């Protein structure tokens, strides 16, 4: 929860980073892999992708191998999730399970192989987005935590925090409010602006509730792109220096 560099890196829901949170994949035991997972969490419009792009560049310049993985981007599930969203026929459980399937596909085909090979995996959102969305929709909180027991605990989790009002202005200036990001499926009303704010407020609450549980490092999302990036680099840099295993190539001159 704190930005302090002295934070105990082992305190990720009581689970060692790089290991399964709960009942993992018995057929894919996790060894002492050299790779690292860095997850960036936060609601849409908070500037995650920009931060990830900048962080990746910085890491690569410093000689680290980097791969990115993003929510609903698995080749297996992406078309089905798109179809489901456009047809608007899914109930909350079906949605939760489709997302979990997408995550499982990326975990096994992208994340685990990358960890084995010593890459830094930059995750554009991780399981916490799914847990937050499910929480807002009234899915049993213990059930969804059991469900994601097969996820590997990241080494660092950054949460870009922003309040609903600031986010609303930012989203309106860029792409506008979408049906799903406004929680219109919750049918709390026809007004997309009101629905957006109510939904995002609830999401922020859910993220806040997870912050201690999973050991989020909270970054203030209202700050400038540059100052957020600086803070990210400082914390990531500190972590990697103390973690020899992820070192693949280090160019001292840079």
């Amino acid at each position, binding site marked *: 929860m704190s930005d302090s560099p002295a934070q105990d890196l082992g305190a990720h829901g009581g689970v060692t980073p790089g290991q399964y949170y*709960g*009942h*993992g*994949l*018995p*057929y894919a035991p996790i060894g002492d892999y050299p790779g690292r997972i860095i997850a960036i969490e936060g609601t849409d419009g908070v500037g995650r992708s920009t931060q990830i792009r900048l962080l990746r560049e910085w890491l690569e310049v410093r000689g680290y191998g980097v791969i990115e993985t993003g929510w609903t981007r698995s*080749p*297996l*599930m992406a*078309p*089905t999730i798109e*179809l*489901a969203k456009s*047809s608007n*026929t*899914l*109930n909350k*459980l*079906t949605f939760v*399970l*489709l997302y*979990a*399937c997408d995550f*499982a*596909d990326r*975990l*096994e*085909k992208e994340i685990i192989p990358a960890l084995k090979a010593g890459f830094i995996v930059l995750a554009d959102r991780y399981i916490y987005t799914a847990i937050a969305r499910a929480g807002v929709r009234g899915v*049993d909180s*213990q*059930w969804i935590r*059991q*469900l994601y*027991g*097969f996820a590997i605990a990241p080494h660092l989790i950054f949460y870009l925090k922003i309040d609903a009002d600031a986010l609303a202005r930012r989203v309106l200036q860029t792409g506008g409010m979408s049906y799903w990001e406004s929680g219109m499926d919750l049918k709390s009303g026809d007004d997309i602006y009101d629905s957006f704010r109510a939904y995002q407020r609830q999401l922020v609450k859910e993220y806040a509730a997870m912050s201690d549980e999973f050991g989020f490092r909270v970054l203030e999302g209202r700050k400038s792109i540059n100052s957020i990036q600086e803070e990210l680099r400082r914390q990531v840099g500190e972590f990697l220096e103390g973690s020899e295993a992820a070192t693949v190539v280090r160019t001292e001159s840079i």
Partner: protein
Amino acid sequence: MLDTLATPHTLPGRLFVVEGIDGSGKTTQLSLLSKWLTANGHRVFVTEWNSSALVKAATKAGKKKNALTPMTFSLLHATDFADRQLYKIIPPLKAGMIVLADRYAYTAFARDVARGVDRQWVRDLYSFAVRPNLAVYFRVPIETSLDRLLARRIKMKFYEAGMDMGWSANTTESFKIFQSKVLDEYDRIVPEYGLEVVDARRSITEQQRQFREMVTAHLESNPT
């Protein structure tokens, strides 16, 4: 955690489930039961494992490319089940109808675990399922089921034969290895979830008679 699979449901309808490996004859038994119930004036609705329209597309795509891992296979089937429970299982139960399910969560407990998915994880996953009034397991030795499948000239499917696990390049061999693991899991599930067992080596008529007796008990004890 909400565990509806462990708690009897209070809906006015009845949920009857058949389980068993491929070639156990459970689908034949279920359709005979359906005819009988309908003839006796019951309103019956039948639902099959992995049959929801949305998930079918993904399963098909995944199967075609043999791209499914044990975990994504398991989660896709759970997604299908969640979808069917909402649209196909709960509404008829609320309407006081009889729902007949050809395979249920127990199929996932048997198959997914045989593929290497964690036993407790998959049980937790399906804890939201409605508990059936009666679940009947048609127990059959692998040789018998294999004979039946071959006699019907059914081409064994990639995943049904467990070919994705790479245990054997020979389809029949792979089927035997995979299904014997599935049978072991069913033996564990039967006492755990109180499944009724029918000896599926007996004649179709004998099995059907026994099946109808089991179902009758559930109809009489609490008429719909």
